[in-house]
């Protein structure tokens, strides 16, 4: 059974389009995260949710909007895509809200390419 899953795995789209990435975890964890990994492999936190409540919102353009319908799902919607949005987006989860104290489980990633 896949612990943290993401769809789609690859996403190729034109500038200006709107797209969504979905994430689901079956670990029963309370906290979920979105990370962006750029072409230089820099892994940066974007958002985190604990029991559907937004607890971390980094300096991310407001074109990015996360949504957590329940604690097992965290989706990421991106409006008006730009070339600089091209990256691999990882979803992750951890048991509690204390990110620094607990192991994070990462999904397989979604490679977004904006043309």
């Amino acid at each position, binding site marked *: 059974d896949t612990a943290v899953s993401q769809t789609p795995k690859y996403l190729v789209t034109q500038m200006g389009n709107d797209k969504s990435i979905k994430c689901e975890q079956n670990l029963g964890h309370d906290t979920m995260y979105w990370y962006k990994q750029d072409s*230089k*492999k*820099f*892994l*940066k*936190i974007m958002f*985190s949710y604990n029991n559907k409540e937004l*607890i*971390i919102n*980094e300096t991310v353009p407001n074109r990015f909007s996360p949504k957590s319908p329940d604690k097992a799902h965290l989706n990421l919607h991106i409006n008006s895509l730009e070339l600089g949005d091209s990256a691999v987006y*990882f979803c992750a989860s951890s048991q509690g*809200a*204390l*990110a*620094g*104290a*607990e*192991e*994070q*489980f*990462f*999904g*397989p*990633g979604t490679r977004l390419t904006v043309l």
Partner: protein
Amino acid sequence: QQPVQSPQAVILREGEDAVINCSSSKALYSVHWYRQKHGEAPVFLMILLKGGEQKGHDKISASFNEKKQQSSLYLTASQLSYSGTYFCGTENIRGSGNTGKLIFGQGTTLQVKP
């Protein structure tokens, strides 16, 4: 604010040892270590929560020097399977404005050759 890892890249022969360092300019609550293979997700190796704590995982271990605000990852008798990019992730001491957030270093690429 981002922790600094050194070296940036290491090339080893099977059986050799390596040390990867992670330094922060902020007081640390915890240090995580993850390994990421090409095209895959980062995979958790270990967390160090206390100053001076050391942990082991097969032939991979780590130490955390809270006073120096740094951690080191030790890979002994390296195997081909150790190849990948190693990331440290740090969380600053609570109350410094970074509670609940891991900040990752830039990564250290390790290549183990036969």
